[in-house]
């Protein structure tokens, strides 16, 4: 960690420790104002304010001036749009924002093979709305919500683009010696981990047919992962590490490496073969294998590092409902023992140490197909207070298919 990171952490921690403003703050302000207006001789504080007034340029909304008060999303604790699905306006809670979402559709070619094609909606930091970002095979938004790493179509890609989300232009290309098909920012945004493959993991093969009972479709092939590169964003320099997938496995074609929650390790998942269990291994940034840290033993496979609470003490658990009950577990990160059970289907990440962002279905219609009619919820541990963040998931003309959220620290 460098001074930059420590400073950010120290300021954030200090800000988190500031309690709420007094409940009567507005009355107090109006009271002081009345008193001051009655004075003929301005007090020191007013004199200071007067100096300020002379120099001030009041930002005008719609006046063309770029006003960015506090980060991209402002500092409102919860920004919810329970009437929107897919989201149109920024959604955020605590330290986390919905940075982007994607829908996937299967395209079948004439020769019988196919491709999983993603369409992204990504937050425009200027308008604070989600903008359709078609044309990218892969997109990952950096913490802070101003930049995304993108890969062009026809994976594996030989360069990583840094997309300025305000201008929608690639400001820099980072060439990679080995083709990458997935890329992810480190939690502090200073590094990228790019997972390298021999073949496009989103490609669908007619030899691997899958059926929905009525029709057959081309299916995923085996993983052709060769390894991963850890790249310094500033210098563009990277180091590649071999981490080939298990050739016997019939698992996911995509087995991307990811950063541990503290950004100091890279986690690499390998699907087991016929006789082997699946393995998740951690490597330091120099590529040396290290023992799995005690609080990373119980991460959920589908959300990886996002399972862990910001303080590293709790971890998202599996579905924990019995009978018709809809509930999801929160567990102790080290022991894996349940510490809470929340009224939601699946945890997607943490807003802070006390609140998770999760999928939840309509409690009255959660049977059968209703299980898939779900919305983003903010759920508080302990009190189980639920705040809807989005409307229920459904397809739309602009984004065909179900949208999947991707979160980033705002």
């Amino acid at each position, binding site marked *: 960690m460098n001074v930059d990171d420590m400073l950010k*952490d*120290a300021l954030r921690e200090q800000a988190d420790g500031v309690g*709420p403003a007094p409940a009567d703050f507005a009355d107090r302000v109006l009271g002081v104002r009345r008193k001051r207006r009655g004075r003929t001789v301005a007090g020191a*504080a007013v004199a200071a*304010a007067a100096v*300020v007034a002379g120099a001030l340029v*009041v930002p005008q909304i719609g006046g063309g001036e770029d006003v960015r*008060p506090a980060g991209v999303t402002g500092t409102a604790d919860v920004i919810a749009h329970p009437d929107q699905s897919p989201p149109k306006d920024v959604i955020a809670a605590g330290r986390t924002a919905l940075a982007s979402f994607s829908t996937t559709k299967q395209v079948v070619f004439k020769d019988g093979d196919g491709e999983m094609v993603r369409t992204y909606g990504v937050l425009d930091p200027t308008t604070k709305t989600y903008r359709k970002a078609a044309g990218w095979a892969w997109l990952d938004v950096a913490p802070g919500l101003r930049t995304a790493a993108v890969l062009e179509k026809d994976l594996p890609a030989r360069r990583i683009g840094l997309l300025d989300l305000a201008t929608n232009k690639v400001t*820099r290309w980072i060439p990679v010696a080995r083709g990458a098909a997935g890329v992810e920012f480190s939690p502090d945004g200073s590094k990228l981990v790019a997972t390298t493959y021999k073949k496009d993991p989103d490609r669908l093969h007619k030899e691997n047919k899958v059926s929905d009972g009525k029709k057959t479709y081309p299916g995923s092939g085996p993983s052709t992962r060769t390894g991963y590169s850890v790249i310094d964003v*500033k210098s563009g320099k990277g180091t590649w590490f071999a981490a080939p997938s298990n050739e016997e496995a019939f698992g996911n074609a995509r087995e991307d490496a990811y950063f541990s929650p503290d950004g100091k390790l890279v986690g690499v998942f390998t699907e087991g073969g016929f006789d082997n269990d699946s393995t998740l291994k951690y490597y330091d940034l120099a590529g040396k294998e290290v023992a799995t840290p005690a609080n990373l033993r119980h991460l959920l496979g589908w959300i990886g590092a996002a399972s862990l609470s910001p303080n590293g003490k709790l971890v998202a658990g599996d579905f924990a409902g019995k009978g018709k009950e809809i509930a999801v577990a929160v567990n102790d990160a080290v022991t894996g023992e349940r510490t809470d059970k929340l009224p939601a289907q699946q945890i997607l990440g943490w807003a802070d140490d006390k609140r998770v962002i999760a999928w939840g279905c309509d409690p009255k219609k959660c049977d059968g197909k209703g299980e898939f009619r779900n919305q983003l919820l903010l759920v508080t541990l302990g009190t189980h207070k639920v705040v809807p963040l989005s409307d229920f998931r459904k397809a739309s003309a602009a984004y065909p298919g179900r949208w999947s959220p991707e979160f980033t620290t705002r």
Partner: protein
Amino acid sequence: MDAVREQRGESAEGFREFVASRSSALLKTAVLLSGGDRHAGEDLLQNALIKVAGRWSRVDDPEAYVRQVLYRQQVSRWRLKWPRREVSYGEVPDGAAGDGGTSAAELRVVMRTALARLTPRQRTVLVLRYFEDLPEGDVARVLGISVGTVRSTTQRSLVRLRGLAPELASLGRADAEQPPSRDYAPVEVRP
């Protein structure tokens, strides 16, 4: 349009709503600008809110206005050479770091203590750069100073932080302390 403006009315009631919904978030920034002194932070925010109350019907974006007043008022304090309030910390750690044994949590406390001892101007620039995450150009605009001044103030502030807290010497150098380099200047290339 953000939620704050949607909720905003044109009356004292609108002002009260604005304060109720935004003052806790604004107070965080005000306390950071005041070096962790909660009372000074409340004073700072109170003065800024008094200003916005006086022109409530004419300000399009009250939050941006209040923030700009906060930042500039804090810098103005420096300009006016106001006596700085001494901030007492009940949690100052031992000065000497162990042999590489200082934990991240301890370092953050050391950092906070050192931040409180910077000048308001130095601290304001660091809060804008590292807490509000504003680019140098935006910091320059909200403070009404040049980008070069933002850069040099950031560098000097980081150097001063290290001077105030030798425990931080074990950390890597911050980007702002690095000599400027053109090696990674952005090149605009369309996909």
